[in-house]
Every structure is written in C-alpha cells, then in structure tokens.
C-alpha cells in the first residue's frame, strides 16, 4: 500500500513538472530556396537589355523587330541576399526545363541552346529571333520533373509560371 501511494505521488510530481515549462519563441524560417524574381537578359543588336519580374513590379519587355538575341534567364530569391538559384536548376538540369512561349504564339522564334546530361534542352539559355512589329506577352514556365522529364510542359510540377508584357518595335 505504502509503495503504491509513493508511486502515485511520483506520477503526479512527474506530470506536474512538465506543465511548468515555458515555451521558446518559434524561429522564423528563411524560405531561401523559393524563387521570387526572374530576370531575362537579351543580348543582340549591339546592346544588352535586362527585364525583371518580381512580386511587386514587372518590367515590360521591349525588343527590336528582325533581330537575333542571345537570352539568359536568372532565377533569384531577392528577399534573401539576392540569392541566385539558377545554378541549382542547371545542376539538376535533367529534372528541370524552362519553356518560353508567347501570345500570340508567332511573336518570337525560340531555340533553346543548353542541354542537360541526357541531351534534352534546359531552356535557361536560348536564341530568340524577333519577326515583325507586334505586341503581346511572354511567358516563362519552369517545370520540375521527378525523373520523368520528357519535354512536355503539361507534365511535372510548376516552380515558376509568370508573364511579361512584350512589345516588338
């Protein structure tokens, strides 16, 4: 009997001791792998133009008609020391692909120039040729695949899907 009384007492003391602790404040998580800005660089016609998309502002893209541009896309986390995430996409290129499309569809001729280890395009670097004077929009779609990269933009999960206004003058 005595043994049990002490056992009960022990349990209660044990239980109450847990109730007394104060909780630490939570730590804010740095979401540093998130892409929150996209820059697209156009080199051609003896000049270099850079356009940026972020959650606060979108630069309208203005290009010259009948010009060949070398383009380069940069994916950034601007909230976290302007971190460049593009290299992560290049390193995991066989599971990523960037699709650049326009509305209307024939605004630009786009040819991806980089290849992943399986010889499939990554799409970070391309050659873009403008045709006639027109206006519309340019969409950048970054797809993340899980070992099933097949160049199909409706497959995979979307990491980036944004649009720039586009003018060809």
């Amino acid at each position, binding site marked *: 009997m005595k043994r049990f009384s002490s056992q009960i007492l022990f349990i209660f003391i044990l*239980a109450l001791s*847990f109730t007394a602790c104060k909780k630490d404040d*939570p730590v804010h*998580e740095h979401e540093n792998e998130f892409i929150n800005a996209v820059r697209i660089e156009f080199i051609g016609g003896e000049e270099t133009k850079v356009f940026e998309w972020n959650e606060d502002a979108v630069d309208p893209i203005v290009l010259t008609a009948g010009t060949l541009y070398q383009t380069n896309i940069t994916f950034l986390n601007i909230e976290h020391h302007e971190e460049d995430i593009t290299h992560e996409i290049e390193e*995991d290129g066989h599971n990523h692909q960037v699709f650049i499309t326009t509305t209307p569809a024939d605004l630009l001729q786009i040819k991806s120039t980089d290849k992943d280890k399986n010889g499939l395009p990554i799409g970070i670097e391309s050659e873009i040729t403008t045709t006639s004077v027109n206006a519309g929009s340019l969409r950048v779609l970054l797809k993340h695949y*899980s070992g099933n990269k097949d160049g199909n933009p409706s497959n*995979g*999960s*979307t*990491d980036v899907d944004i649009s720039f206004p586009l003018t060809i003058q």
Partner: protein
Amino acid sequence: MLQKLLFLTGLITWCNFAFAQTTNKDVVCSYIIKGNVLDENNQNTLAYATVFIVELERGEQSDSNGFFTFTNICPDIYTFRITHVGCQPRDTTISVKGNTDVQLFLDHEYQELIVTEIIGNKELGKELNIQESIQQLHFKDPSKDLGQILSNISGINILQSGTNIFKPIIHGLHSDRLLILQNQVKLSGQSWGAEHAPEIDAASAQSIHVIKGAGGIEYGTDALGGVIVIQQTIPDYRTDWTGQVSSSFNTNQSGFATHARISKGWVLPNDHKMSFQGGGTFKRNGDARAPKYVLSNTGIQENNAYGAFSYLRLFSNLHIQSQTFYNHYYRKSGILAASHIGNVEDLQNAIENQKPFIINDWTYKIQYPRQQTHHHTFKQQVELSAAWGKLQLQYDLQQDRRQEYDLRRNGRSEIPVLDLKLFTHHIATKFNRQIRQFAFHTGLEYYQKDNTNVPGTGFRPVVPDYQLYNVALWARNQWKHKKVSLESGFRYENHQLRVAAFNAQNELYKPRHNFHTFALMLTGDIQISKIVHFMSNIALASRAPNVSELYSAGVHQSAAAIEYGDASMYPERSFKWTNRIGLQWDSKAKLDITPYLHFINGYIYLEPQNEFETTIRGSFPVFRYQQVGAVGIAGIDADLVFYPIVNLLKLQAQYSFIRMTDLTDKKDLIGTPPNQLKLAAGLERSEWKKLSNLYAVLEWKYVGEQLYVSRTNDFLPPPGAYHLLSFDSHIEWKVRSKTMGAGLQITNITNNSYRDYLDRFRYFADLQGINLILKWNYNF
C-alpha cells in the same frame, strides 16, 4: 469471498445432460454452451457483453439479462474472450465435455452500461458475431490498416489519400470530430490534416469498438461523430507463456506483414499477481498496382512495438491494480509521386491526362513525397477498489513527431518541408460508486499539449507553434430497472490556447484563445419483446476550433490550394439523435437499423472562394475556413444477417445512406460519403473432420455515385458508381494441441479500374487492382 469475486474466471459449473452421456465415443459437435456474464464486483448481470470463442471465431452477444447461448460446439478446450465497451477484455479458458452452463465474470471497470456505448456495442456484437468473423479475420491479417478494418462496419467510410493513407469517417465526420482511444489513452496526433492517418497499429488491437452516438462523456466533448475504442486484453494472471504469430503476404504490393505477441502471468505468494504482454508488428509494402499501371511511390514501412505490465494485489477490504503500458509506432508512407503538383494548372493537366504522369518501374523504395511518423505512448494507471467504490488515477504521455518530405532541389529533399513535434500530457482521476439500481461516475481530467515546429525546414509552417491547456469535468449516472435502462451525463471542458505565429510581415505575434465546450447526453434502452429491442441516444456536444482552422495561412501543396484560417471562430455545437431498432429471431436472423439525425451549429469547413491568387508559381484557388450557420446530417445504417442453414450457410446485407446539407445556404456539402451496399454469402462450419473454423465468403460491394454534393466547387465531378467483388477464406487445424491457421483472400477479383469519391487522389490515379493475400497464423 472478495478474492473469489475479483478473480479472473469465477465460477464454472458443469451440467452433463443425458444426451451427452448416451453418445458414443465419436466426437459430437452438437453441444450447447449456455451462460451469463456477470460483473465480478457486484454480481450484476452485464447486458450486451460479447462472448467470443477465440478458437472457433464465433461470437455471441449477451442479451439484456446477460445470457448467451452457443450451439454446435465440439468437445475441446476453448478460450472465451469477454468484451464490453469500456472494459478491459478478458480471456477465460473453459473445457467443454458436454452441454455446459457457464458463468463468466468481467471486471466491469466503470460499471458502465452507458447506452451510447451500447449503440457502439452493436458494433462490438458485429465484431464478434459470425458477421464479424469476417472482421476478425482482418485481425488475422496484420497488413490491414485501422481504417480498412473499420470500413467493414456500416456507416463507416474511409477518407483516403491514395492506396495507403486511411482515415476513418463515422456518419460523415472525421479528423478532429472523432476520438480514438487506445487502451484508454486518447490518441493525440496531428489529426487536423485530411492526409494524416491515425497513428495506430491495428494488428496489435485485440478488440475494436465503434461508438456511433455523439458526446462521449468520459472521453471528450468533441466526439461529434463518435468514438473508436481500441483495446488490448490483460492476460490471465495464471497464464503460462502463450503467444500468437500471424503473417500475410500480398501480391498487389508484394507486401509482407507479421505480428507477434507473447504473454505470461505470475501468481506470487501473498496474493501478488502480475502479468506481462508484449508484441510487435512489422510491415513492408512496395508500390501498389492499379489494373493498368503501377502507382509509383505508394509503398509503406511500418514497425510497432508495445509492452504492458499489470499488477494486482488483493487485500481483505481493498484491491489495488496497476497497469503500465508503452507503445511505439513508426510509419513511413510514400505518397503517389504523380500527386506532387505545382499549381492549379498542373492539377488540371493531371486530370486531363487520365493516368498518372509519373509511372516508374515497380519498387519497394519510398522516395518523395513521403510522410514519416513516430508516435510514443506511455501510460500508468492505478486503481483502488473497495466497498466505498472505485478510484482510478491515470497519467499518460504521448510524443508525436510528424515529418513530411517533398521533392526539392539541390539535395534538400532529405530536409522535411513539415516537421512537427507534439507532446501531450494527461492526468485523469475517476471515481465510481454503485448503490442498488443506481450507478454514479465522475471524473476530473487535465490535458496539456505542446506543439512545436522543428526549425530548419525552410518553409513557413502550416500550423503555428501552440500550447493548449485543457481541464475537463464530467459526471454521469445510470439507472436500471428490469428491461429498461436510462443514462444521463454531462461534461464540461475549458480550453486555453496560446499561439505563437508569424503574420504576413513575418512579425511574431502571440494570440490567446479561451473556449468553453460541453456535452450533455441522455439515453434510453428497452427490450420491448423477445424479438424487438430499442435504444435511443440524444447528445449535445461541442468542439473548439483547432489551430489549423484558426491560423492556416498559405499554400497547401498537396491540395494545390491557398488556405486561410479565421481566428474569430467559435466552437461548433452539435445535436445528434441516434436510434437503434434491433430485431432478432433466435439464431436464424438478425436485423439492426440505425437511423440518425444530426444538426451542427457553426460547422467549420474549408470553403472554396471562387477566386484565384497569383504567385510566381502560377495561380492557386483560395479556400477559407468558414463557419456555417447550420448543417444538417441525416442517415441510416442497416445490417441484416440470415442463416438459412445454421452452422453452414450465411447470407448478409449491409446498407448505409447519408446526406449532409448546409441548411443556411441550401446546398449539399462536399465530401459526403456516397451510399453503399454490401451483399455477402458464405459457407461456415465450426468443425469438419480434423479442421476447425472453416469458412469461405464471397462479398459484393456497390458504391453509388455521389449525386448529392455541390459540383460547382470541385475540379472534377464525383466519379461514377463502382462495384467490387472479393473473396475470403480460412481454415484451422491442431498441431500438437497448438492451433495453426491459413487463409486466402482476394480483393477486387474482377480487376476493376475505379476511383472513389472519398479518395483525395482521385484526380490523379485509379485505385488498387486485384490483390491476392495469403495469410497464416500460429497460436501457442
């Protein structure tokens, strides 16, 4: 005298009738065992207890006077398992040499004849009747999940996330509106998520009961839908080493599962009695296979280990019992690879594609996305009983760790996107006393929950850190007179919630909430005639909003949705009226009808907003947790069992119907279970030559198309009706007085491709195709 009363088996008397004496030496399997079940504390009869002969897998329910009858029993030594909701089940060994009258005793711990539990007890009866022997076999197959076992009961559906994550739904309600008790410990996990299955190893359960009435007075005011009670037996203190091993192999997932259990009792000098039970489950499943493709990344790994130690000391005027229980549950579940999507366009692409985008070669490997959970449960209980009543003290501790992994870049997939640690402490004291026809019970409880997001995920947490302090007080009393029982009870809870969250500007803020919830219950039970039995339960219950309903904010990745909580929400209040009409024609046929009506005021649910939020990852539909003025739920469960030839042929039918309506906006609710019909025909025989417990059952299950749901706010209309054919069989035989058993089960015999409305992954893939399950067991 007291010692005798408290002892496990009690009095057994033999009555050999002239019939038995005149038979020759051939084995006669026509003996009748009659008996009654009594409460060993006060010799009162225990109505609606279930007596189950383990070796024969046959069960009977005691009637309102505690009497039961088994027919066609062969001479042998049998283990009688007596169960009653809320009691510890108990095993008693009885040697049958002829027609036998037995008296079985159960320590009816809280002397409860709470009728909500008897409505639940209907299920208990089912579990152990011939009808339930199908369910018993699920116990024999350790690969079955709790949700899969429970879905054999009418009125219970499962909320699935593909082929390996199952959450029970009782009468249309799930998650935080149900309570799950494991050995009297209220399971405390991250139950708010639709893809978070209860952390329970069903193979270690020795009895599972479902209470369909609301307002579990002893368990929690938030049991709006019902209570699931999982128990393990305390072995007899005189048992020598005994054990059981059961295993199964399935072809669909090339899966293997095994469960082993051992127990031993000791009776020491000076009336010290001790017993031990320990066991574990091991489960491995590879990818599931739909009829047309492999469901990639749907394997599971599960390990569970438990140990229970009990001690009993009898003094002349006092009896002290102590129980210590520990359980560790671990599960790693793959989540269908193709369900990983970025935004709503990906979801629409997945729907249009008809089959999953990712189909890899079959493997045991679990990659991304996946969930990993560790759940530890420790319980210490001490009970004192004497002439003044019974006093019980309990402390339990649970630690739940949930880690969810998703596909990430740069080797970060090995870092969880969600990492939650939840500690729960619970202290409870209970007292009960019985004076003649009147029984009184009361209790005081204290809960403390502490939820922490383990830092380092690199993701904004879906639920914030919080602490919850909960104090509960309850009382109930019962009155019984001849064929009528009445029960009433109330429970009050106070919830103090302290949250530490980050707002949209990443500033820490610490809101506090204080909620009061209550439950009130009234139940009546009457045996109208030998055939007709009626029971009615009225319960008021209320549930405080949980932290995810109050503070969700952000993208819910697996649902491709942006979800927002609402911190101004108040507790849901519910009124549920459950009735049961039971008709029994001797051992020929049995019909149970359970209609119910349920109104919930302030029902909380995630409402689609018909608006899209554009992020850098594309557009996401917005959902907000909202409270509906009034929700009405109406439904009926019906169960019929008919034996055209007793001990040979059995036919059964099960039907359930439910409708859930938002009465304020006059629209049907999303997620209402479709109507369901099951028909089964089986051959059953307790003995045949040297074999025992033979059966073979063919079952046809029809799930209707859900027509009564709002279609405007879903990405895909509910899938069409489907039917499934399954077969199950089993035999047992003796090897040197030990029992060996083997069985074959086939599910989805016709290899149907189908999708279920309650499967969250119905947008992505079909469910499992044909599956052959081989199972065997050995009892020693």
